[in-house]
């Protein structure tokens, strides 16, 4: 008795074809973020000026050949500051979300598998967090701990893990009813092995997709707190701080606030596109 070749063999040629069929949103998002990452890693190579250098001959100078995106009230080059802010803002995107993601995924997997009263208790925690406005909660925590980025990361982490946990718990609850989970139990595998080796890899996709969106939201949040003076502190280059710097000159020197805003939008778009693309990619590859 021979066995016919499976219907969908992965030949190298097909693998290449599959690469070409990557979702266009994924490619666009990846390109934007790759460029952002380069700017974050090597700002001094690209930025024309030192971001903190004062040029008293060009106070509030409009965009020109010397200052492509103009200069601010201290004569600092807006373009250089926007570029140097990439490092800090991407750092905010990562540091503000990674702890929440990690804790949320682990707790969510355990809660989803346990079910019963554990799930009921978790459900009430979720309700409590969700009914409270996220930004207000974070501001309250930062206000107690004191302003600064580290305290902002703590505040976002304390609240944010709940959203990841909820996504993962719901998915694990579906997956644990499938036969492969039972197959693991029949094999005598320990619950932790079944949860993290079998169920989690099949349940984590929505959390990863949400993570991408969350990084965009974290940049916005970081900028908002920077604007309010609760996040990054001046004279650091940070988009929210820059926007706050320009608020008094909105009528005369719009470029101080608008260009950091554009950077926020583009980076946020990059994360969102990557998230959409990942969702599509992970969905079609079942």
């Amino acid at each position, binding site marked *: *008795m*021979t*066995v*016919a070749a499976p*219907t969908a063999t992965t030949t190298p040629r097909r693998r290449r074809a599959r690469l070409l069929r990557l979702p266009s949103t994924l490619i666009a998002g990846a390109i934007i973020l790759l460029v952002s990452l380069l700017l974050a890693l090597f700002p001094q190579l690209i930025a024309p000026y030192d971001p903190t250098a004062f040029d008293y001959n060009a106070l509030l100078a409009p965009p020109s050949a010397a200052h492509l995106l103009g200069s601010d009230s201290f004569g600092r080059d807006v373009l250089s500051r926007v570029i140097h802010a990439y490092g800090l803002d991407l750092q905010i995107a990562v540091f503000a979300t990674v702890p929440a993601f990690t804790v949320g995924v682990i707790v969510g997997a355990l809660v989803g598998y346990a079910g019963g009263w554990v799930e009921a208790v978790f459900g009430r925690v979720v309700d409590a967090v969700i009914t409270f406005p996220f930004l207000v909660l974070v501001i309250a925590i930062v206000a107690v701990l004191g302003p600064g980025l580290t305290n902002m990361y703590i505040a976002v982490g304390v609240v944010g893990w709940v959203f990841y946990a909820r996504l993962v718990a719901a998915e694990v609850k579906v997956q644990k009813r499938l036969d492969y989970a039972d197959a693991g139990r029949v094999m005598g595998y320990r619950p932790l092995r079944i949860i993290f080796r079998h169920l989690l890899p099949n349940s984590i996709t929505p959390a990863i997709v949400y993570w991408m969106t969350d990084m965009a939201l974290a940049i916005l949040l970081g900028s908002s707190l920077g604007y309010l003076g609760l996040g990054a502190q001046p004279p650091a280059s940070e988009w929210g701080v820059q926007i706050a710097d320009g608020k008094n000159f909105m009528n005369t020197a719009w470029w101080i606030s608008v260009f950091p805003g554009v950077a926020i939008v583009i980076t946020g778009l990059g994360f969102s596109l990557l998230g959409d693309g990942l969702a599509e990619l992970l969905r079609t590859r079942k």
Partner: protein
Amino acid sequence: MSALPSQALTPALSVRDLTTTFVTSAGRVTAVDNVGFDVFPGEVLGLVGESGSGKSVTLRSIMRLIHAPGVVGGSVLWQGRDLVTMPERELRRIRGAEIAMIFQEPMTALNPVLPVGLQIEENLKAHTPLDRAGRTKRALELMDLVGIPEARRRLSDYPHQFSGGMRQRAMIAISLASNPKLLLADEPTTALDVTIQDQILKLILELKRELGMSVVFVTHDLGVVAATCDRMAVMYAGRIVETGEVASVFAKPRHAYTRGLLGSVPRSGAERTMLLSIDGTPPSLAAIPPGCPFNPRCSFATEVCRTVVPPLDEVSPARLAACHHHDRVAAAGSPVA
């Protein structure tokens, strides 16, 4: 391909060169390839095959229930009129009136938010001149006819309040509302338990006798064919590979696939022995092997099978087979005889 010469009657339904293709990301896929058969008045024809053989698509193509990107070619002559080229309006008068269809999963074929009685009445409204009172009376009669107990009370029940077997009975009642001349049944008992399947099969046969319908019965179960059909057509990879009287096909299959299929079914008297299985799996429609589509799995295959597509020819009276080696297959005998 011609009508079976031994049948002097004119066929009620005559399918010729029916070809249904779908354009997919993997290219053009031919789900039904040059299929032709006749259904005579009062006859039960079994359309047999495994998943992907095109049996259900054939049935849907007859009713023109193929949606874009599917394209149906060939002709389906119903009492002299071609269903494939007929204008949509004219087709609607035939669908559900002269030709009715029942499906494998009645839960998805019934409207979940309308009471069953109303769904029967809807069909009566569309295809009969009955008034409101007449329709309710007829709906009751039909539910009695298909063996739904307490019909009057159940008229106002919703499909989810019915069991699987009762849902299939309700589906049959709806399809019979307009006294169809032809019933197309797509695996109507596959989702049912064996004692309920038995009830439904016998119901269909009884109704066929009473109402003088023809039936095309799509199934993968040769036991169901043996119990219900007069003639059978075996499909593989979108083509018909053998047709004939059920008793004669079972007694002496003339296509290697038919023979393999018969041998794959466990039979009494041969417990705990090896079944005559067919190696490999049915081909994907996107990658049908050249020559005879069955050749990679066939123990009778020779060089010619790998290059030349065997035509569906009359190999013995009232029997068509598309096999280069039908004589050798016939000589090998039936695994169930």
